[in-house]
């Protein structure tokens, strides 16, 4: 073994050690809270502290799903709101993305700019008029109000992602179909959509997560029976007796869908966050 070889092995070990170190540093808070959700109240406050639970318990989770607990209903509310938002956003957004991606639309640039700026809007600027209108309409607290307002941001994401994807489809296919007499609607539904299944799935997951994670609209537009998971988690701390273990457990359950999404793939992630940055 030459000296040069030895240095290369050493530097490889150093890189791995640094990479794992960085990862552990960033994931430590998550892992600590996950561990905390399996601890008894006594152990959470114990000194010297434990990192991993000495006597793991499922009590915190059991309490969340106890018969009188409101938590299961908030999970259901989050699901319903996210489904409404995703259905609306996909239904309207995919068609719009296809139109904006085609080169046969005049003023497409201006239209794109308008639809794409939604992502930039400060939510707090929209929530005031929403609150006022839904209050007047007597819809304050309805899951439809929450789902539809979440769709504003979901639709922006759908258009960002799907427009970027449709632009990668070869234009020859579309032109060939047009020569054969197919209408725009037929090309869209029979050619473009079937070719985009993977992108559609990724887009749907993203718009679901956008709604699942949304907080401001949910907290303003919901009432006690229609609280979503983030709203319920936020209201924990305001209570007189805070069960820290249950708070940790509820937080872990709330971020499960997000963690599942990490594994969907970085490629789609990047398209979803910043189309145009990558081709």
């Amino acid at each position, binding site marked *: 073994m030459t000296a040069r070889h030895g240095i290369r092995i050493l530097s490889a070990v150093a890189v791995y050690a640094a990479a794992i170190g*960085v990862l552990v540093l960033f994931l430590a808070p998550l892992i600590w809270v996950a561990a905390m959700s399996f601890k008894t109240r006594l152990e959470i406050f114990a000194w010297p502290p434990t990192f991993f639970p000495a006597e793991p318990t499922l009590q915190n989770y059991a309490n969340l799903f106890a018969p009188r607990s409101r938590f299961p209903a908030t999970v259901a509310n989050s699901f319903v709101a996210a489904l409404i938002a995703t259905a609306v956003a996909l239904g309207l957004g995919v068609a719009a993305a296809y139109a904006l991606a085609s080169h046969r639309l005049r003023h497409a640039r201006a239209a794109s700019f308008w639809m794409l700026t939604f992502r930039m809007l400060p939510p707090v600027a929209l929530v005031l008029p929403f609150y006022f209108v839904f209050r007047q309409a007597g819809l304050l607290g309805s899951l439809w109000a929450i789902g539809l307002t979440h769709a504003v941001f979901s639709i922006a994401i759908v258009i960002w992602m799907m427009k970027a994807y449709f632009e990668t489809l070869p234009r020859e296919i579309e032109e060939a179909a047009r020569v054969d007499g197919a209408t725009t609607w037929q090309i869209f539904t029979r050619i473009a959509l079937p070719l985009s299944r993977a992108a559609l799935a990724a887009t749907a997951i993203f718009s679901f997560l956008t709604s699942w994670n949304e907080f401001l609209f949910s907290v303003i537009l919901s009432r006690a029976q229609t609280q979503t998971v983030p709203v319920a988690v936020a209201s924990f701390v305001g209570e007189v007796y805070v069960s820290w273990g249950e708070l940790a457990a509820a937080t872990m359950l709330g971020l499960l869908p997000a963690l599942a999404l*990490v594994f969907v793939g970085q490629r789609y992630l990047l398209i979803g966050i910043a189309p145009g940055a990558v081709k």
Partner: protein
Amino acid sequence: MWPLLAPAGGFSVVFVALPLIGLFVLSLCNWTLTRARSPSFAGVSNYARMLSDEAFWGSLGTTVLFTLESVLLQLALGLAVALLFNRSWRGIGLIRTLFLAPMMIAPLFAGMIWRLVMSEEFGFLKQVLLAVGIENPPLWLNDPTFALHAVIMVSVWQWTAFVVLFMLAGLQTIPPELYEAADLDGCGALRRFRYITLPMLMPFLVSVGMFRCIDGFKTFDLIYAMTAGGPGESTQTISYFVYQQGLNYFDLGYSSTLALTMLAMVVAMTWGLLAAGRRASTR
């Protein structure tokens, strides 16, 4: 083509354009829901009030400090981590994927997690600092001079992965021939970074910085979850200030004025940064 666009266009009119027009009309009215049944026209008095409101200028300053400090830290840390992760070695791919976890989490959950981590009574951070011999660790969220930096720390924790993602994509676009040529010329690692990597990454740094600035400027959930603007007003961002005026004090006229001003700032930032991005990418 237009029929495909029309439904989304209609939705955007109802849920974005009309509310924004409503916001503008409300900003010209005096209307506190708890006091008056109906709005009364107030002209630009809400805007005059805003300009002389110290709390507004304070929250604006807090927001700018929050945005600059958190985005600069995210960019620096994100670039460093991306250079470390930019290898197609066995296992690095998995590390990269797991590293994305914080940015997928709802900011509200991130805030809650860190509230627990920074707890005075049982927090992990306190335990670690005591274990390494630091007897009086900072009070984190209860210290008015430190709370903002504590929240910034959480935002850096959450969004560094976002920068890493962009930087890794950027690093892929650098032709390896450039490095080979630099090697032939006998350039060291530092000079390669200074004269090849950094300039090639510049457009990516600008565009990711733009995203992060806009999102940072709007920060609300994190503040709500961690400090509710306190202690005092030390972490009151402009989003939180708008929320408080509108939905705690129900002063719809004044909060609409603030919201619209904030919207104008975000739009200006978007345009400014877009223009900067275009300049950086054509260079």
